[in-house]
């Protein structure tokens, strides 16, 4: 038994690994971590191999490849030698999984956090308005206007504020 113990790989606890993952920033929005973003769906040990399940935000988001690389680098830096990064599609990522801390940091960073919950996919009739009131992250005004449903990254829309006149990004509910 003693011989086995000396051969065994040290397996940091899942809690410890989550603390390390909390240091891995989103490459596009560096004020929030991959945990704040809600894309880390599972962390567990499978024998001597660590499995981290990640779900993509948008299916074509180029940041996902960088995020995978950053997670590998960060965990390797903490001595994790065998890592299996698994891509998990279902349940599909939703902005409901953004942490409260993440939403607050988005606002401080100048990006309005999502107002409503998940995007409504149940209907596309234009007779039912689905546009929420988005408050300006700079001055707090509710007098804001959608400029474009698509912004500088797939997860954002472009708004402008009618009071402070500043344009801003809105993290779209998804």
């Amino acid at each position, binding site marked *: 038994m003693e011989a086995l113990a000396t051969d065994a790989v040290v397996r940091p606890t899942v809690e410890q690994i989550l603390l390390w993952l909390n240091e891995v920033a989103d490459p596009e929005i560096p004020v929030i971590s991959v945990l704040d973003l809600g894309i880390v769906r599972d962390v567990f040990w499978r024998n001597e191999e660590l499995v981290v399940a990640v779900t993509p935000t948008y299916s074509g988001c180029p940041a996902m490849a960088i995020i995978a690389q950053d997670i590998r680098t960060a965990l390797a830096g903490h001595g994790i030698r065998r890592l299996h990064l698994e891509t998990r599609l279902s349940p599909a990522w939703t902005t409901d999984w953004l942490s409260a801390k993440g939403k607050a940091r988005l606002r401080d960073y100048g990006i309005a956090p999502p107002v409503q919950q998940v995007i409504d996919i149940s209907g596309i009739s234009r007779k039912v308005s689905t546009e929420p009131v988005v408050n300006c992250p700079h001055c707090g005004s509710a007098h804001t206007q959608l400029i*474009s449903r698509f912004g500088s990254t*797939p997860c954002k829309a472009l708004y402008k504020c009618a009071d402070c006149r500043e344009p801003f990004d809105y993290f779209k509910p998804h």
Partner: protein
Amino acid sequence: MVHDNALFQYLLRLGDNCLIMGQRLSEWCGHGPVLEEDLALTNVALDLIGQARLWLSYAAHVEGGARDEDQLAFLRDAGDFHNVLLVEQPNGNFADTIARQFYFDTWYYFLLLDLQRSANPRVAEIAEKSVKEVAYHVRRSADWVVRLGDGTDESHAKMQAAIDQLWSYTGELFASDGMDEALQQQKVTFDPAKLRAPWVDHVASVLDEATLRLPEQTWMQRGGREGVHSEHLGYLLAEMQFLQRAYPGAHW
């Protein structure tokens, strides 16, 4: 070895629609009418290319692993592509691009809603992921149809011409063949003819708001899903596939 040829072909149809539509939209990069639209066109392209990867990588898996998603995308010739003719039509002016997108987004949205219930769990989860993205696309393309249709005399005329011109490519969206029927019996897919009523309903309602006429023409083009394409696809592939044809196996 191909495990399930009907499923493989169906996945190619889904993946090729997204890939070719994404490639067409990418041609707008740097040419959008305004900066915000340049971003929107390429954002939609990015979503669709991401979805193409999901469909084509699953197709490669179903085929048995002889080819991967990149080989399916970059090393097939036009006759082996199974996208509908609508998505390969040239960008034309901005109204032409919007009309094509509006017809496609509306159809794809209703198709994905159905495919979330597929008996094939991988098809269902790709549809679940994709429909959230397409719900944004379809709202944007309807916004533009209304804005251009109910705009100036010139934008109205161009939007109506685009809606009329592309109408004959919409019939193929709702057609079935023997391959579809095999998958429908297994509840992997559902009868595309049933998508027609909600599609026409939404299209007619948006056109009405846009002060545009719903086309009445009944003769429809077909052939894309069987690999019989318009001349435009070859030129598109020549550009999209150039790198892999000239430098086989090149990677970043």
